[in-house]
């Protein structure tokens, strides 16, 4: 494997069974009782290679599976199919004990700063816990020093370690959330919409903090977001997801200047722009349910360029010029 690749996601598939209890599986139809399960296909074969030190963003509308992707990569959900590699080690199928050493390398920052900190623990305790857990040999003083250092890094006064999270504002909480991820000195951080719940003025602060930390600590980010202007600002490469599948993966600049996939084009045209007449490309219809995915290309129900092949055959990611990967029959055939 390419030594520069830090985390590699290969054909990841995650399905959720929402059938409910044992009795709910049985359906009565046409005079027969049949057993049937309802499955949500949240992520369908997504592959991304994240290189050391870069920021890869995953964008898409709500419910497209970007958070599920992030949680599956972190091992919060076991994947149904596919693999996740950290450097050269496959980590998705490890037992909890054998996964332990990788936990220190990979951390996560969550969306909701109000729910991601334990309300019954002081900030000091929240930050101490991961250090004590991963480096049990460290003395009390050393742990306290490390906590103070991390708090300083994220711009929180270390004297606040006796405070509780409810005494902090949303932005300050998110700083603590980032600090918690940093305590174990990871090199890969999954940020699941870390700024979505914050005020616009605070969003910029947190973003800048994350970018500074990336420089200082040589971090690699997998950045989940639905805010395209933020994504353009922070990321080196961008992956666009729609209904659990990846449509396009490209360099950030390339993607924003020359979107290839029809969905990416529609998504980007939705960014409001000053001084320009609205050139908003309107999509018709709703996002289909991930319980019964459309056949062929998942986007064919709403795409203007649909033909028969799109309805039948699932498009694979193909390389096009500029290092872009697109999953679209139209682009492959040169129609678009």
């Amino acid at each position, binding site marked *: 494997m390419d030594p520069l690749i830090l985390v590699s996601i290969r054909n990841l598939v995650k399905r959720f069974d929402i059938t409910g209890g044992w009795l709910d599986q049985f359906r009565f139809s046409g005079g027969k009782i049949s057993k049937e399960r309802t499955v949500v296909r949240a992520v369908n074969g997504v592959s991304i290679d994240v290189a050391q030190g870069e920021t890869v963003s995953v964008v898409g509308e709500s419910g497209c599976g970007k958070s599920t992707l992030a949680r599956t990569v972190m*091992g919060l959900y076991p994947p149904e199919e596919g693999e996740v590699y950290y450097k050269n080690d496959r980590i998705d199928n490890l037992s*909890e004990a054998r*996964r332990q050493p990788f*936990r*220190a390398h990979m951390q996560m920052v969550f969306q*909701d700063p109000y*729910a*991601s900190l334990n309300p019954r623990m002081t900030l000091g305790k929240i930050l101490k*816990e991961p250090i004590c857990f991963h480096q049990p040999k460290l003395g009390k003083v050393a742990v306290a020093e490390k906590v103070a250092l991390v708090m300083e890094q994220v711009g929180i006064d270390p004297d606040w370690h006796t405070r509780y999270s409810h005494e902090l504002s949303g932005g300050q909480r998110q700083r603590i959330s980032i600090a918690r991820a940093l305590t*174990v000195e990871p090199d890969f951080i999954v940020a699941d919409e870390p700024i979505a719940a914050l005020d616009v003025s605070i969003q910029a602060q947190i973003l800048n903090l994350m970018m500074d930390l990336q420089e200082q600590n040589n971090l690699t980010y997998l950045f989940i977001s639905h805010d395209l202007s933020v994504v353009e600002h922070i990321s080196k490469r961008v992956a666009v997801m729609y209904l659990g599948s990846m449509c396009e993966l490209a360099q950030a600049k390339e993607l924003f200047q020359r979107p290839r996939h029809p969905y990416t084009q529609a998504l980007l045209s939705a960014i409001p722009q000053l001084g320009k007449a609205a050139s908003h490309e309107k999509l018709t219809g709703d996002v289909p349910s991930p319980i019964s995915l459309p056949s062929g290309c998942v986007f064919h129900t709403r795409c203007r360029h649909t033909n028969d092949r799109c309805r039948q055959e699932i498009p694979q990611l193909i390389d096009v010029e500029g290092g872009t990967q697109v999953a679209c029959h139209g682009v492959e055939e040169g129609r678009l």
Partner: protein
Amino acid sequence: MAFLRKIQRSDFVYYFFRDPIAYISFGILLVLFVGAFAAPLIAPHNPYDPTTIDIMDSELPPVWASEGSARFLLGTDDMGRDMLSTMLYGMRISILIGLGAVLLQATIGIVVGLLSGYIKKLDAILMRIADVQLSFSTYMIAIFIGATFQMMFGVANYEKIAAPLLILIIGLAEWPQYARTVRASVLAERRKEYIEAARIIGLSRLRIMWRHILPNTLSPVLVISTVQVANAIMSEAALSFLGLGMPQNKPSLGSLITSGFEYIFSGTWWITIFPGILLVVLILVINLLGDWIRDYLNPKLYKG
């Protein structure tokens, strides 16, 4: 000092002293508790010491009645024991059994609730056990167990183990209350992101349950605990009333009420009425305090 000042300035104390029901109930409860646990010091007689009991003193009315004796403030029971002293000693037993039973219920209930809320595989089986338990009446289970033990140990030996046995019976009969409450809170808490953060750190399930989930589920536990103490004292009184509780020579409030019940129609009303009133007051203040704590801990209710 700083700690005391912190308590003095806390919301809890502020709201507590603004609500007359809260501080009056607490005051009465405090008096009852002190009276019960200091009984050997403050009670005028020792009802457990047969040498001080004279059968000639039996069924004396309270001091204000014409036949009353100044030695016995609230009169005496059918065995010549001083009512006031016996009630204080009896209340001590009732409270101890109530607290002990609640401690047992809470321990079983919290463990079961945490396990079934956090570990999905255990949920179905543990909750079905709780359902089965709940579908029987508490008293039926208690009577069943109590009667079995009485037969096994014989009435003489039963007296020695009556108190711990009652704790066990009442504790085992009501744990599903706790298990269900805790499970419901755990289900709500486990979805929150701080639990996911703890999992990503790599903490074990046990530690997540104990250190992260449990502290966040304790406020409903606190509320039902107050109600359950009152319930347990009631259950004990009911069992004693049925003759399956504390024996006559070590009476709890319930057994005192029973023993007086036989004489109530012959005019000796005080043996039943006084312990009855004491029981009602005890249960009432505990319940009122429990209600108040529930209101205090519920941010959705306006604290006026």
